[in-house]
C-alpha cells in the first residue's frame, strides 16, 4: 500500500500518521506538502489533525483551497481511500467532500481525552476489522468537533449507512453522537478522534492501528471490500 499524508501549514499530527502507517509491514508512506498538486498513485491519502492556517476564519476553511485539494478531489472522485482526522475531517467538510459542518464544542472547552467509540458499521473499508456494536478506545483533542447537519442530511447519513463511528459518551454535542462519517460512495471517511494516537499499548490503546490496518486489508485485497 502506498499512502500519502498531507501537511498543511499548521498540521501537527502528520508525523504521527506517518509513523502509524510505516509500522504496517508492506505500507509505504510519503509526506506531501500542501502546495504539491500531484497525488496520483496513492492508495490512501490522509489529511491529518492540527490547526491548518491557525484555524483562521473557520477550521479548515482556508486549507480547503490549498493547491493539493484539487488533486485530492480528483482522487476522491476516482474512489481512492481518503481519511480525514480531526482538522482533516474539518477540511473535508469545508471542501464539500463530506456533508455537514463543525461548530464549537457545546461546552466551549477544548476536549482532550480518551473516548469510547461505538462501531456503527463494520462493513466499511475503515472498520472491517471490528464487529458492529464493538466499542473502541480512541482519544479526541479538539475545540470544534460539534458536528452539525440538518435533519434531512442526518436521515440520509443513517439511511445510507454513512455513520461509521459514534461516541458512547458524546464529548462535544455532535448531532446523533456522530464521531465519523463516510461519503455516499464510502471511500472518504472523516473522524474527529485520532486513530494515530491509539496505535500502541503504551499509548493506552491499539484500536486506532486497526483502522489503518483495515484500510491496508482493503487495499491489499485489490481495493474491493
Amino acid at each position, binding site marked *: 500500500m502506498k499512502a500519502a499524508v498531507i501537511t498543511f501549514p499548521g498540521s501537527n499530527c502528520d508525523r504521527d500518521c506517518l509513523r502509524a502507517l510505516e509500522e504496517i509491514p508492506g505500507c509505504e508512506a510519503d509526506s506531501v506538502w500542501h502546495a504539491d498538486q500531484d497525488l496520483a498513485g496513492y492508495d490512501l491519502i490522509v489529511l491529518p489533525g492540527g490547526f491548518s492556517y491557525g484555524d483562521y476564519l473557520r477550521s479548515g476553511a482556508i486549507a480547503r483551497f490549498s493547491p493539493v485539494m484539487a488533486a485530492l478531489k480528483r482522487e476522491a472522485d476516482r474512489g481512492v481511500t481518503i481519511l480525514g482526522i480531526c482538522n482533516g475531517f474539518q477540511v473535508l467538510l469545508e471542501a464539500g467532500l463530506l456533508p455537514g459542518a463543525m*461548530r464549537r464544542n457545546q461546552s466551549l472547552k477544548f476536549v482532550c481525552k480518551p473516548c469510547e467509540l461505538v462501531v456503527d458499521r463494520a462493513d466499511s473499508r475503515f472498520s472491517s476489522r471490528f464487529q458492529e456494536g464493538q466499542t473502541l478506545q480512541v482519544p479526541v483533542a479538539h475545540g470544534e468537533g460539534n458536528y452539525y447537519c440538518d435533519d434531512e442530511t442526518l436521515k440520509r447519513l443513517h439511511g445510507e449507512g454513512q455513520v461509521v463511528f459514534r461516541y458512547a459518551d458524546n464529548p462535544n*454535542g455532535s448531532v446523533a453522537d456522530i464521531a465519523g462519517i463516510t461519503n455516499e460512495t464510502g471511500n472518504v471517511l472523516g473522524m474527529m478522534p485520532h486513530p494515530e494516537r491509539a496505535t500502541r499499548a503504551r499509548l493506552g490503546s491499539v484500536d486506532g492501528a486497526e483502522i489503518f490496518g483495515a484500510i491496508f486489508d482493503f487495499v491489499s485485497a485489490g481495493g474491493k471490500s
Partner: protein
Amino acid sequence: MFVARVQVTIKEEVLDPQGKAVEGALHSLGFEEASGVRIGKFLELTLNTDDRAVAEERLSQMCEKLLANPVIEDYEFELVEAGEAR
C-alpha cells in the same frame, strides 16, 4: 472603490454555544431582558471596482465560497463608496 462590511452569523436553527454562554453571563449580571444572543463575525474589505453591481456579485461569491459556511452560517453585507466610508 467600495468598502464592504460583511456580517456572518450562525443560522437561526443552529445552536450557537458561544451565544448561549454569553446570554447566561448577561443574565447572571442582572440583564434579564437580554435573550437570543448570537455571536457572529464582522469583516471589512475594500473592493477595487467602481461598478456596484459587479461588487455585489463578486462579494456574494466571496461569502458563498469562503467568508461564510452556508451549511451553518448566514451572511449580510453593505457596500459603501470608499470616500464615504467612516
